[in-house]
Structures are given as C-alpha cells and as structure tokens.
C-alpha cells in the first residue's frame, strides 16, 4: 500500500471506523471498475458520515465512486481517476412507509428484493423489475438509470420517484421534491440524479410512490418469420384498448440466448422461450388477469397475432410466467455472460422506425460475421447486443465497425444510441455516450455546480463529465 493510500484509509477510518474501511488489495478487487482499483473503500453508516467522507475527498481532490451492490459499475465511460469507493450498503433502512398514502422513503443501500418483500406484505410494489434484481440496491438502480420491462405500463423511475436527498460534491446536504405524490415546489433536481451514475451527488434517501400489487398475470408469446410482422403486432397492440404490462420483441438470436444454459442459471424454471421455434422472431407480452377481461386479452392478442402473420402463439400458464418474465428482465446480464466480449448498444427511435433500424443492424452484424441478439421494447428502446466469439483485436474491429454504423443510423433517424456495456479495454475506442450533443455543454455546467472540484465519478458520464 502506498503512503497516500495508507493516509486515505486512516482518515476514512476516523470517519466511519476501521471496521468499515477496506484497504486490502485483495478485498478491494470487489470494487474494481474497468480494471482500476481504488486506494480504499469505505462503508459509511450515516448521512453525516457520507458528508464527512465527501468533504475529505474534496479537500484532498480524491475521486469517489458511490456504489451499492456494484451490479452496474461496468456501465459508462472509463473513469479518469478512482481513489475511493463509497459503499452505501450499510444505509439500508426503510425510513417511512405509509401504504395508505402509497408513499415510501428508503435509504439507498436497501436491496430491491428485501424491499419488495416488505411492500408485498401490504399488497403493493415498486415497478422496478430491473436487471440484477436478485442483488441490486435501490440507490444503485436509480443512479444507473436502468429500466424494467414494466416500463410499458408504469414508466421509468422518473415517473414515480417523488424526491431525493443527496450529498453534493462539496459534502453539503441537499434535497429536492418531497414525500407526497403531487408536488411542484422547487426545481426537480431529483430528476437529474436518475441515471447520473453518481456524478452529481451521493444519494442518501429516496422517496417513491408505490403501486397496488399486480393480480396474477399471464404471458403471451408469438413467433414470426420476420421482424416486420412482429412489429406489426406491436402496432396493433398499442392501438387496441388492451393495456399490456410488458411488450417486447426478441430477435432470433435473443430467443436462442434466453432459451440457453446461461439464461437458465439466471432464472430457472420452464420458460415459454424454450418452446419458441428457433430462428424466428418472437413477440412477448404480459397482461393482467381480471375476470372476464382475461378471456378478452387472450382472444384479442391471438387474433391480432394471426392478423400480423404469426406462425405460432401460446398463452402461458401460471407455472411458466415467472421464469419467462424473469429471463426477459435479465436480458442484459444474460447476454453479458453469453460471450467473452459482449457489447450492448442501447438504441432508441420512434417505434415506427424500429423496422428500418433492425434491418440495418441485422445487415451490418451479418456482414461482419458477429453473432447478435436484440430485445426490442414496445416503446422503441432496444438493447442490441453483439456477442463475438473471442475477445481479440479482430473482434474489436468488427464490433467497432458495427457500432459506428448503428450509432450513425440512429442519429439519421433522430434517435439516440449509447453503448452502456462493453469490455473495459475496448471502451476508449467506442463512443460510449453516443455522438456529442449540443446540450452536453449545459450538463457540464450543471456538473460544475453540483461538484465543482470534480471528484464524483469523474469521466464516467456523458460529455466527459
């Protein structure tokens, strides 16, 4: 351990106690980000301790990365510096929960699964069915800005996060929003913190609106020879009165990955994707069951699928729902383990342009001979994953060529494209945050207000923030 590392650890131990500071390199390996290790990791036990840690780091100009269960740390651009990992898992309490008001206030380190258990006791839930659900924390999920297949019906955290408390880059306590479902007092600073990857502040408290738990749900799957047909079912479904809970389209590669060994490890149990004909596109939707409405959902979905030219369709019994939904939710973690060098491009276009973009990415992937799998959300947000068979220079060149084309195509269609997941050593040559946008300049100014010294996860975010 260097002298600097040793004095950092000592000072952090003064704040949070030596038991809550890690400086042993072996243990620090757990906090690795893009092959960088911090000098120390600290697990503060209170908001005040976090504030002290950040103040110390600001004074010493030490780069801090806040983290929870570390599920999403590989997202984003490479860090410019990394000195201290700020582990928030000790802040894992429910601070207030009033089922009658549908409001919930929690600390960032609480695992989503534990929280879900408490809410289920009151027949409520948070629609955060996100990747890495089995270990992810609430704070990490919000900071990473990952979303859930339930977005189709419930929106993203932006739609149900009511307020936040956080510590700025200078160690000051700040808050925005409140703990009521309707509130327009002050600026919505908390919206900035969603998906900010810890670059604006350290989240210390999150207030949510909760939702009545879903009654039993069922899954509808259909298979198609072409993406175009599957997309025409999407269009019919959004124009129908049906209110689907999830709606996704899977490429033949995605069907294969979700039916494979890796997927079974993530979410065991019989999934309908096992039964989908291989080599075909699939349409996957979840719908609520409610009396006579159930029969109507089934009837109309089948009818619309036939009209769209499906080869095969099935409505899943209760035994198969959880695994089916779970594998879809875990699409990203599954593809990350399905290749030695997975690259995931997040693409977003107006839904009517999905056909064009999918044809183009399929073409370029095929020409470069890289295996790919795409999960296309009903709202136009897709995860296009490239699964090269090796992690070498040749694979990197192919993948880079494909990504360039995909980013250019998305830009041409007025859409967005970023590369949230990518092998560490390839990051420097990829446009992780997509093309430079005019508003990045405003974002840099914001960063400067929240974190003037530039110690919070420097370099990880869009625009070099």
């Amino acid at each position: 351990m260097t002298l600097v590392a040793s004095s950092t650890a000592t000072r952090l131990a003064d704040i949070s106690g030596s038991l809550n500071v890690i400086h042993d390199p072996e243990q620090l390996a757990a906090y690795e980000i893009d092959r960088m290790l911090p000098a120390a990791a600290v697990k503060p036990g209170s908001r005040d301790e976090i504030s002290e840690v950040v103040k110390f780091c600001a004074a010493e100009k030490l780069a801090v990365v806040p983290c929870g269960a570390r599920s999403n740390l590989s997202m984003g651009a490479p860090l410019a510096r990394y000195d201290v990992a700020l582990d928030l898992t000790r802040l894992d309490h429910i601070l207030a929960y009033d089922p009658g008001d549908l409001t919930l206030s929690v600390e960032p380190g609480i695992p989503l699964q534990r929280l879900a258990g408490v809410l289920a006791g009151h027949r409520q839930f948070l629609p955060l069915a996100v990747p890495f659900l089995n270990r992810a924390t609430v704070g990490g999920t919000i900071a990473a800005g990952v979303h859930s297949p339930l977005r189709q019906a419930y929106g993203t955290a932006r739609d149900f996060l009511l307020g936040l408390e956080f510590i700025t880059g200078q160690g000051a306590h700040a808050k925005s929003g409140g703990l009521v479902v309707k509130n327009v007092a002050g600026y919505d600073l908390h919206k900035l913190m969603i998906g900010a990857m810890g670059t604006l502040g350290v989240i210390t408290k999150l207030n949510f609106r909760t939702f009545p738990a879903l009654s039993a749900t069922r899954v509808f799957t259909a298979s198609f020879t072409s993406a175009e047909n599957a997309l025409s079912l999407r269009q019919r479904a959004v124009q129908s009165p049906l209110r689907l809970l999830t709606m996704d389209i899977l490429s033949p590669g995605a069907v294969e990955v979700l039916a494979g060994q890796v997927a079974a490890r993530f979410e065991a149990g019989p999934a309908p994707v096992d039964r989908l004909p291989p080599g075909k596109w699939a349409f996957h939707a979840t719908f609520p069951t409610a009396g006579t409405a159930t029969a109507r959902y089934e009837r109309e979905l089948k009818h619309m699928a036939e009209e769209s030219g499906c080869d095969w369709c099935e409505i899943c019994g209760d035994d198969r729902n959880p695994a089916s939904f779970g594998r879809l939710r875990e699409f990203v973690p599954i593809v990350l383990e399905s290749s030695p060098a997975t690259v995931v491009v997040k693409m977003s276009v107006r839904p009517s342009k999905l056909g064009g973009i999918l044809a183009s990415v399929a073409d370029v992937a095929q020409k470069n001979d890289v295996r790919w799998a795409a999960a296309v959300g009903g709202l136009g947000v897709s995860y296009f994953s490239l699964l090269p068979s090796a992690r070498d220079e040749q694979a990197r060149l192919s993948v880079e060529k494909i990504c360039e084309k995909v980013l250019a195509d998305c830009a041409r269609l007025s859409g967005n494209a970023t590369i949230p997941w990518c092998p560490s050593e390839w990051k420097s040559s990829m446009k992780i945050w997509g093309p430079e946008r005019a508003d990045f300049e405003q974002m840099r100014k914001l960063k400067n207000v929240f974190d003037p010294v530039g110690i919070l996860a420097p370099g990880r975010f869009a625009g070099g923030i």
Partner: protein
Amino acid sequence: MKFAAQRLNRIHHGAGFAALHAALAICRERRIVWLPLVDAPERRDYSAEGYSRIKAICAAKMNAKLLHDLKELLGPDAVLHRPEELMLYEYDGSVETARPDCVVFPRTTADVEGIVRLAQQHKAPLVGRGAGTGLSGGAIARHGGIVTSFARMNRILEIDAENQIARVQPGVVNSDLSAAVAHLGLHFAPDPSSQKACTIGGNVSENSGGPHTLAYGVTTNHVLALEVVLPTGELLHLGNSALDSPGYDLTGLFVGSEGTFGLVTEITVKLTRLPEAVKTLLAIFDTIDDATETVAEITARGITPAACEMLDGWTIRAVEDYVHAGFPLDCAAILLIDVDGLREVTEVEAAEVEDVCRVHRAREVRVARDARERDLLWKGRKNAFGAAGRVSPSYYTQDGVIPRTKLPATLRRIGEISRKYNLQIGNVFHAGDGNLHPIILFDERNQQQFRDTVAAADEIIAFCVQAGGSITGEHGVGMEKDRLMPLIFSEADLSLMQSVRGIFNPEGLLNPGKIFPDSKGCGEIYARPRREGAAPSARQS
C-alpha cells in the same frame, strides 16, 4: 368590430373569471384594446389626470429605443405599450398584480431569439406568458419589463399518430390539442380545470396537474423534448422524441421551472390513448370522515381510479345553486370518481368502488348512465370555483398537499382557521392524491379581510407542511409562495437551486422575483396596497 363589441358587452355583464378570460381571448383574436370595467368609474381611475400619470410612469420606465427596436423586429402590431393595453397583462389567475412595460407577440422561434437579444442589450426583465390562467403569479412581470405572450405561437406543428407524439408551439391551448387528436383515439392527458384556456407552454412552465393526474401523471410525465431560448440568447434542444436521451434529464429539470430558465418555443409531447370505457360515480356522504375513509379503502383494495375528487358541503351547495348538477344540498361531502380502461375491467372496478362507498355509509351512490350525465357531474366539479365567484366578491384558492391519510385532521384544522378569522372556506380537492384546494371567500375592498385571508391561507399551508406535505401540488410557487419556500427547503437547498438557475439565467433577467424568497418578496404581499379596480381575483384549479 361591432360583433366583438357586442360579445364583449355580453361577457362583461356576465362577470366572473371565465367571462373575463373569454373577453381577453376575443381581444387577442381581434387585436383590439379593451378597457375592462370601463363603465364602473368607482373601480378604476380613468380620469385624464390618472391616465397621464400612469402613462408618464410607464414611459419613463420603458426605454424608447427598446420599444422602437422591438417594433422594428416584430412589427408595430406585435408590441403593446400603452397603459390601457398593458392593464390586461398585469395579472393572471392569482391575487397578484404587476404591470409590465410592454407586451410582445412573437410568431416564430427567431422572433423570440430577437426579443431575448434586445432584452439582453437593454437589460430589461423578460417574462413568458401563455393564457395568463396561472395561479401563482408565474406570468406576471413582478419587476416590470417585457412580457412575451405566446398567443400567436399557437400552431400544432406535427401529429404523429402512429407513435403517439405531437410537436406544438407553446401557445397551443391544452384542450385544442386533445380536440385535434380525438378522431385518432388520442388525447393529451394533463387536464387542468383551465384547460379550455391555458396553453401547453404554460403547462410546461408550471408542471400543471389536473383531476386525472392520479392515474395519468402531471405534465412532466408527458413531455419528451423542448426547444428553448435561454435569456443569454442561446437556442437549446433538450430531450428527444425518441426516449432516453443520453445525459442528465434536462427536459425534466426545465418542466416546472416556472419560466425561470428559458423561454420554451417548441414542445414535443406524448399523446395517450383514450380509454375504451369510463364510469363516473357520485357518492354522497353525511360525514367527511366517511368520505375520506372511502378514499383510503379504494386504494387499499388496489384500485387506482382515473380521478377521485371531493367537494365539501358548503361547496356542494354553492355549485348546485349555479350548475344544477343534481347534488344534494344537505350532505357533508361528495366523492366524484372516474374509473376507466378496458370495458370489462371498468365494470368490475366501478362495482367494487360502489361497494366500498356503501360499506362506508354512503347515503347514495349514483353511476352516470351516459356521457351526458357524466359531463353534468364533472361540470359541477369543474365549476366549483366559478360558483364561489358568484357568492363572493373575491376568493382565494389555496393549493396544498398532504399525505392522504391526514385528510380528516387537515379538514378539521381548516375549519378552526375558518372560525378564527371569521372567513368562509370551501373545500375542493383531488382526494386521490391529497392535493387540497381550500377556497377562501373575501372582499378585496376590505383591507383587513384581505390580510386575514392571506394569513389564513398561510396557516393552512403551514399545517400541510407539518403533516408531511408540500406548499404547492400543482399551482407553482411563483410570487405567491416564494416566502413559504423555507418551510420545506433549507437555505442550502435553495442556494443550490438558485445556482442551477444561474446556469441558464445568469443575470436573473428572465422572470425575476419568482420562486425564491428574497428581501423584497418577504411581506410584500401584506404591505402592497391593493390598487383600486384591480381585476376581480379568482383562482381555479
């Protein structure tokens, strides 16, 4: 012109807030100048002396060069500066007033950029304005300067039915957008009670809500992208019609910033599919507690109604007298509940809601049989504020939020405050989300009563905060509640927010004197003498 004069005359004799707005709309449409209440000399000083006094003050304040440049830029018909013209723009739907130095009417984004450049050159304050229906003084030129009215930027630029997206100019009226896409089975979901007059630009600035936001969300949940002109003259495009723009959510930050960051010149919104079926239920209760318990149990049974509104006994009687919606005159509270969605689901949920109402001793539950009956029930709710205007010279509608479970205690407290100040207070609220709108009746000619009204309103808001709520649910802070911000935010919170404002609006030229408490704002509302003849105040939600 004659036709307009006749209509104005009729409207004038009708009185009331809605009438005044209709009159303003006609004035704008015909580009004519109207002197409101000109036949009521006791309410306004229209003597030659008074007129020249006001004119002299305005002229002194308004730089002649700036006026000339504005006219050069926009044409003479797009700049108002005579005192009698400016009177129409000195207020919004709140009890606040302040006269701008001039009002300009851009037609394009380039016009707005030009206006901003001139304001910047002359260091003139700049305030954006939609229809002026706001309820917290957001569109009022508190420190004078240029009011930029978006009345002529009212085109729908794009309707993309397939992707359920519309792109509009800020002056498009909220309900006009819904009407324009109704034949496609779509609508713009945020529905403030002023939706027939208020503009989408105004909705974006204030992050407006409405009765149906319980299930559909407020404005921010429906805005995808913005084009804005910063007071520095920079043109920015925030967000994208495709979801999840990379970087910080600047769109989310701008929505609800009350016109203090930039002038919005284009808005891309989501359109929502109209529900297949809607059921409206009216439940009548003999006690307020029964009504509030009903709301709690509807939630407990896992039902999220599209809307859940409550009116108290006093309001019911005022409304019934006006609208004749068939509300019983001797009850303590009614709940007006919408459930919508798939036909089959709606049937089941309506039956369950009805059951909950009966379990909690509803005296009667009526289910609207058709669209006509539904509209009549909703007309009763949407005209609650107009009804208050009929029985009192003025009224002040508050906007507080509480956790729903604190509803009974809050209503008891409002009752105590009403008795303490000897002021009649009616209660209308979005019971589903705990957003209260107490209506305090007063006569603004009575200075003491006006002061008592403000004090009573502040006490109500202080109680909301104590109960864990907020100082505003959907009306905004503006110049009405800036002094109340310290009730919920620390000095450090406010200072961070002000630093954020400084990024976009570094010199504070855009909408100065709003949201944040400053030495001028504190107590101003108490000290400011009410000018004789201020437009009758009326607020609605």
